[in-house]
Structure formats: structure tokens, C-alpha cells
């Protein structure tokens, strides 16, 4: 099992009372204080660096725009800062939102630079960005999927084909694709696809030409299990056995001395996360064309209805969207779920919403010292597969 520590970098200094309708798109930035932001950025970078010291295999950043949910609109900047201050951990950008940019080559360049500086410690995440970003960046959601695939193809071409080459797409066109630098890792950095588990994503990511890691993010456990199993089945259909590293699970997680203490210390913060920082009406999250009509209706029915109610820590723990407890409780749950879905990458969000620095560090340390060692041996490639 490989363990990564993920940070959203929430603007935790926000006045929670001010978040009424949403924390996204048009939640005014007059609610942001740069002096507090300065402290938070540095605190959060300390936490990511601490994860490297603790022996996490990866440290992860990601991209969101115009929201108190996460103040990392340009994650490669922070990945660059981390690349010189960390020694061992992979630096995972999970990920840049490809369709949001008019020039995906800039993403190929950022990633290749970090890969060069770190001598091959980059994990390259590609996402479409959630629906809200399409309101903020005014990119047409109807083109989101097409642009994602085109941008991906362009980046891979830039990374793997000796330049100059031409790229002629519907949305992106270049006469001279000839990127300096080329990535450090051959043929290119590992690619992870954070996902909510659409069928199209599974088919595409698991294809033998790609075998990209599908990272299920912030989803109810039944959904995570169903999607990981479906991914593995798709691999079988393609004629190969899915390897544990191809399956990743990302979720908020908190460890304390006892189950009771863990719940007590995290309750307020995880409830703030799911009820305040995530808050956005359906129209914000689901702009027209972002998904197919059928997926749109399904998401509306399942996910949006679920999120209309107040989510208590008990509900979140019951449906596996949050794991919390003593080290042994947490290790047992993770092992049980690993058996059910076969993941080899666990990505924990160890800081969430308003959780303070001391508790974040305490939980991280306890996780790395008392949970990770118990699980190292599972979620590794089978001998047969290694052959």
C-alpha cells in the first residue's frame, strides 16, 4: 500500500456565518483576508512538508477556483515550492483541470519542469474540474469532455514524441509542439485520474494503452467499491489483471488516541467541510453539458438529494465518506475496505475545513506511526502479476 497526504488548503479563517448560499463562484472575496491567507499558506505547506518527513509516499495538491473550499487555483506553484523542500515523497498534482486552459501545453511544461527539478518525483493528475469552475472560468461545459481528451492527447504528444510535431485538434491547434524541457521520467510521469467514477472515465483510464490510476474522491463507500470493482472488471475485459496501484481512494481521515476522542476532535470540522465549504446549489455544480443528460439526472437524484440535508459526522462515517477513530479502528476499516475493492493507493485528506494545525499534525503522526505500518503489506502487486 502506498500512502499519500492530500491538502485542499481551505480558507479556514472564513467566517462560517457568511457562507449562506454557497462557498463558491460568487461567494465574495471580501471574505478573504490576505494576512490570514499568508499564515495559512505557510502553515499548509509546513503540513505537506511534515508528511514527507513522516514517510508518506506522496504529498498532494489540487486546483479549485474562486472558493473558500480551497485556495490553490494554481497548484503547480505550490508543487514547485514543495519540490525543493521535500526529499522523498512523490509530488502529486491531483490535478490540473485540462479543459479550463486555452493552452494545455502550459500544463505539460509546468509538470515537466517539476519532474526535472525533483528528478522524477512528479505524479501527474488530470481532471476536468468540477462544474463550478466552468462558471468561474466561463469555459463552455458542453466542450469539457472533448477538450479534456484533446488536451490529454496534446500533453502526451508533447511529452513522448520528439519535436517538433504538429497537433491539429478541434479545440487546440499547434504547428510546433517541441517542449523544452522533456519530462524526467520515461516515457512520462505516472498519470492519475481523480474521478467520481463515470463509466466513460473507467473505460478510458483502464485501457491497456493507459492503465492510469483511477482515484475515487470523496464518494460514499458503496459507490467507491462499485466503481473500483467495475474498473477491475473492465481491465479483465481488456485482457489483463488490474494492479492495486491502478486503484486509489481519497477521503478525509482523522486518527486520535481513542474512537471517542477522534470523533470529538473532528466532529465540528468535518461537518463544516461537508455542510459549509462544499456548499453549492445544483446549478453551480452541474452546468449544462458538463455531463450527459442521463448522468445529470442520476447525479441529481443520488448525490444532490443526499447533500441537501445536514450531514452529521455519524452519517458521514456510516456511509464511508469519512474514516475516524483510534489507530486500530482506522487500520481495521482500511484493511476491510481494501479487501472489498483492492486499492493500492490511499490518499488521506488529513486536514479539512477548520481543523487546526496541532490536531492535523497529531493525527498525521499517529497515522504514519501506528496505521501505515499495519497496512504496508496489503495492496501490493501479486507475484503472478509481477511475473
Amino acid at each position, binding site marked *: 500500500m502506498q500512502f499519500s497526504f492530500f491538502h485542499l488548503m481551505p480558507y479556514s479563517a472564513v467566517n462560517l456565518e457568511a457562507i449562506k448560499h454557497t462557498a463558491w463562484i*460568487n461567494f465574495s472575496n471580501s471574505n478573504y483576508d490576505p494576512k490570514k491567507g499568508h499564515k495559512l499558506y505557510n502553515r499548509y505547506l509546513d503540513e505537506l512538508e511534515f508528511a514527507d518527513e513522516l514517510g508518506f509516499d506522496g504529498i498532494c495538491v489540487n486546483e479549485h477556483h474562486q472558493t473558500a473550499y480551497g485556495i490553490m487555483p494554481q497548484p503547480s506553484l505550490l508543487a514547485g515550492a514543495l519540490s525543493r523542500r521535500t526529499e522523498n515523497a512523490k509530488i502529486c498534482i491531483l490535478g490540473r483541470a485540462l479543459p479550463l486552459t486555452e493552452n494545455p501545453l502550459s500544463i505539460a511544461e509546468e509538470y515537466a519542469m517539476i519532474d526535472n527539478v525533483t528528478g522524477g518525483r512528479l505524479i501527474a493528475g488530470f481532471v476536468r474540474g468540477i462544474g463550478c469552475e*466552468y*462558471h468561474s472560468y466561463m469555459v463552455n461545459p*458542453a466542450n469539457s469532455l472533448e477538450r479534456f481528451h484533446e488536451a490529454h492527447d496534446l500533453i502526451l504528444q508533447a511529452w513522448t514524441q520528439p519535436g517538433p510535431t504538429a497537433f491539429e485538434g478541434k479545440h487546440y491547434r499547434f504547428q510546433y509542439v517541441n517542449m523544452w524541457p522533456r519530462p524526467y521520467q520515461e516515457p512520462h510521469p505516472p498519470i492519475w485520474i481523480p474521478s467520481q467514477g463515470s463509466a466513460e472515465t473507467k473505460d478510458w483510464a483502464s485501457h491497456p494503452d493507459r492503465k492510469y490510476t483511477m482515484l475515487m474522491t470523496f464518494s460514499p463507500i458503496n459507490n467507491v467499491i462499485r466503481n473500483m470493482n467495475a474498473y477491475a472488471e473492465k481491465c479483465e475485459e481488456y485482457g489483463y489483471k488490474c494492479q492495486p496501484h491502478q486503484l486509489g481512494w481519497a477521503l478525509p481521515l482523522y486518527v486520535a488516541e481513542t474512537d471517542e476522542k477522534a470523533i470529538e476532535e473532528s466532529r465540528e470540522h468535518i461537518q463544516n467541510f461537508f455542510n459549509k465549504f462544499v456548499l453549492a446549489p445544483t*446549478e453551480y455544480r452541474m452546468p449544462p453539458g458538463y455531463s450527459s*443528460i442521463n448522468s445529470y*439526472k442520476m447525479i441529481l437524484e443520488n448525490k444532490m438529494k443526499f447533500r441537501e440535508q445536514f450531514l452529521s459526522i455519524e452519517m458521514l462515517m456510516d456511509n464511508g465518506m469519512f474514516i475516524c477513530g483510534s489507530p486500530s479502528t482506522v487500520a481495521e476499516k482500511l484493511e476491510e475496505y481494501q479487501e472489498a475493492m483492492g486499492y493500492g493507493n490511499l490518499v488521506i485528506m488529513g486536514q479539512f475545513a477548520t481543523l487546526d494545525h496541532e490536531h492535523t499534525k497529531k493525527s498525521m503522526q499517529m497515522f504514519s506511526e501506528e496505521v501505515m505500518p499495519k497496512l504496508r503489506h496489503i495492496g501490493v502487486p501479486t507475484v503472478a502479476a509481477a511475473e
Partner: protein
Amino acid sequence: MTSHKAEIITINGCDTEYLRGGKGPTLLFLHGAGGINGWAPYLDALAQGYDVIAPSHPGFGRSEDPDWLDSVSDMAFFYLDFMEYLELQDVHLIGNSLGGWIASEIVIRGDERIKSLTLASAAGINVVGVPMGDIFMWSNEEAARKIFFDQEIANQRIAASETMDEEQKDVQLKNYFTTGKLSWNPRFHNPDLSKWLHRIKVPTMIIWGENDEIFPAAYGEAYNALIPGSELRIIPECGHLPHQEKLEEFLDAVHSNTSKT
């Protein structure tokens, strides 16, 4: 009710449904983002004096969503083909909202088949400093409240939307998706259109609800300033859909314009 029929024809590979009814000069009605929802009272009223043709645009209603559809420009060329296919002549062209944008784009490309133009709360242009309402951020209920001045009509629409069957819901989503595709950015306009509106030479009537919260009445004034010889009628106590909210005033403006030809 005037008798009418629904037909499907194939234009540029796209199965396209249109309703047709009434007798008189040809009138082509281009719907807005909400689509054509059956033979509505305003179509029936128009059919008293005209041969009314009301298509569902490609990507709307029961018409197909063709691969080639990317923009309102595609839509405008499609309707030039559509009129050619049906051999329509001397057409009184009416467009509401998104349909008004399409209508303007048709006429600047070629007015050989067009006799008059009526724009009702038309999208298509941008007035700097006068923000449009953002329909993509509104819930169904908010949208109904903002689209109609008369909140009683809004209440009826909200109640009706709660009893829609699956097919109606699918059509509503399809209309919403295609609207987004055509008008996301630049939002509900083509920056080039205002440069060429002087090419509109046919009699043009511009109808606007004084209380339009999507395109405020300043948009009507801007259209009126850009189209030579056009006439502007601003209807008091009226939202974004004058043909639904103030049918009499709407019909009066249409007749007044078509009788100029």
C-alpha cells in the same frame, strides 16, 4: 383552436420537427431557450392570420442534436437551408430570446426569403455596463420568478414543472444543454453581430418587456439603434416572454410590422 400538424424533415442530416398551422402569409417563429411546448396559445393566435411554421431548433425538443452544431452561426445557416427546403418565400420571421439572436444572424447572412423581422427580447448583442441575468445560475423556480413579471403565471409554471413526465423532463434538459452549448461564452451574444446589423433592410419590429430580467430593456434600445429604420415597443409590466405574458400587445406589434411590407 386552429388545426395544425407536426412534421419531421431532414435538413443537412438533421431530423427536424416543426409545427405548422393557419392560413395567410408565411410566418416562421423561432423559439427561445425553453423550446416549443406544443401548439401554444400564441402560435394559435398567430395562425388566425398567418401560415405559422414553428420548428424545434436542432438540439431542441424532438429535433436531433447534430454533430455539426457548435454555434448560432451554424443555426443561422441551417435555417437558410430550412427555408430553401420548404421553398418558403416572403417570410415574416419572428424570434424570441435565443430565437431572436438566430433570426438576426439569418437576416444579416441573406434576406432573399425574408419579408419582415420581429425580435422579441432577443439575445445576440451585449450592452457594456448592463449585465444580463445569469439563467445558468438560477434554479427552475428562480427562473420562473424572473422570467415573468406576473407572479401568478410564474406560480402556474412552477406547479406545472412539478408534474412533468420523464419525456418532458428529458426535453427540458436537452433544451437547457443545447442553450448552454450555444451561448455560454460569449454569454448569449456574438461580438461580431452588432457590426453587421446594418445589413438588415426589411421592416423590423423590436418588442421588449419593460421588466425583462434576462436582457434588460436597454438591450432593446441597443438593437433599435443598430438596425436601420426599426421600431421599438417596450411593453409595461412584462417580463422576458411578451408573446406569453402580453399576447395582445405582442400580436399588435407583429401585425403592425408585417403590414408595413
